[in-house]
């Protein structure tokens, strides 16, 4: 028993540290890739090719003064960023990076990820409300409405995968894809999932809560210092989790020839990161009414139709 607990703690710390490292360097690569796409160099000054930039950024945020506006609800104002960060990081506990390497294996892995991701949304609402300022309240409400809207068809889009693999266990879902990846059986669901993921992550083209020209910075307008860094960390940790889930549900997880499983997993995950950054450099932002129309009137019926079609095809074949 003690042996297993030690094993758990080691795995946990490895996953935690690697996740924080990936988050830090994700911000670097985002700036670098977008820089090159716009014919700029991106960060170059701190370290060779700006490689130490994320560390400098982190340190800067760490020693910045922490401003708590006088109209704010003090404890909620502190609680919200911590809740957001915790909800994002604990999702990593169930992600199977290879057949052997995961912190724990739950038979309800998919439900665990979806439910805790929803709790993270409440943190955004709390952050907006507790700031005691107008822009954060509007930004928080918009974030919540946006994430709730897109969560619905995110949930529906993975239903087809669950029907095919017959399990909520992430390991079994990957094992069911030994021969053919789910993306072949569920191409529509994959597209719906990726669009929902962009909406969930508040990424361009759906970064409406942070529409600078309307809402300053959305729900974290009043946040500064390390509390602001928590929102940032949580956003990128969510990006990791969403990419991991896409890899597990649709792209065969750690399955792949020659290379060891974990390398395949990381390659596929990085492809997703690159895709998200590429999208950010390419698309303009949607208007809020357009965004809601896409979610409720186009994506939701498509996702529901996909479930029915999958059901019929599975019965006939």
């Amino acid at each position, binding site marked *: 028993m003690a042996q297993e607990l030690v094993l758990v703690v080691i795995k*946990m710390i490895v996953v935690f540290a690697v996740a924080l490292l990936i988050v830090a360097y994700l911000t670097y690569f985002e700036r670098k890739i977008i820089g090159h796409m716009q014919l700029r160099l991106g960060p170059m000054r701190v370290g060779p090719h700006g490689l130490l930039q994320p560390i400098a950024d982190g340190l800067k945020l760490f020693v910045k003064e922490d401003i708590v506006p006088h109209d704010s609800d003090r404890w909620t104002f502190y609680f919200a960023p911590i809740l957001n960060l915790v909800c994002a*990081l604990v999702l990593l506990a169930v992600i199977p990076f290879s057949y052997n390497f995961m912190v724990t294996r739950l038979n309800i892995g998919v439900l665990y990820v979806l439910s805790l991701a929803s709790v993270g949304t409440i943190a955004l609402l709390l952050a907006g409300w507790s700031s005691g300022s107008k822009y954060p309240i509007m930004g928080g409400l918009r974030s919540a409405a946006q994430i*709730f809207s897109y969560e619905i068809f995110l949930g*529906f889009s993975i239903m087809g995968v669950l029907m095919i693999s017959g399990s909520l266990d992430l390991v079994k879902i990957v094992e069911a894809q030994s021969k053919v990846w789910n993306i072949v059986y569920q191409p529509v669901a994959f597209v719906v999932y990726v669009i929902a993921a962009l909406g969930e992550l508040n990424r361009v083209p759906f970064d409406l809560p942070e529409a600078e020209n309307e809402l300053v910075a959305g729900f974290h307008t009043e946040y500064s210092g390390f509390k602001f860094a928590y929102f940032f960390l949580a956003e990128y940790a969510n990006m990791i989790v969403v990419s991991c889930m896409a890899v597990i549900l649709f792209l065969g997880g750690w399955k792949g020839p020659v290379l060891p499983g974990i390398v395949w997993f990381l390659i596929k995950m990085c492809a997703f990161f690159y895709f998200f950054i590429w999208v950010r450099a390419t698309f303009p932002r949607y208007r809020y009414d357009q965004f809601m129309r896409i979610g409720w009137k186009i994506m939701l019926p498509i996702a529901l139709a996909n479930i029915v079609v999958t*059901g019929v095809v599975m019965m006939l074949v």
Partner: protein
Amino acid sequence: MYQHISQYTPVLLFFALAIGFGVGALLFAYLVRPNKPDPEKLSPYECGIPPLMSVNERIPIRFFIIVMLFLLFDVEAVFMYPWAVVYERIGWWGFIEMFLFIVILLVGYVYAWAKGALEWE
């Protein structure tokens, strides 16, 4: 995966680690960062002018409608997860049942659409 401890023990430990990191780093930052508040610095952001009106203004009803629709569909999704997992075992009977369930919810969805609950003007 583990024989002697529950599968949920690592989840709890992970929660403890994440909360510890979150609270610990904030406390540590509290020791090293400067703290020089003044009334202007602590006033809410309002593009450089003193804040006008209270923040507790009325909030558009749209947000409540969206959250209610979310609850409706999310509960539907909760019913669908167990159904999706055992789908291959329950066959056509299960398919027809779920089809009827979706149709009933679609009636509500079409009603909300016709009433303009999904419009955002």
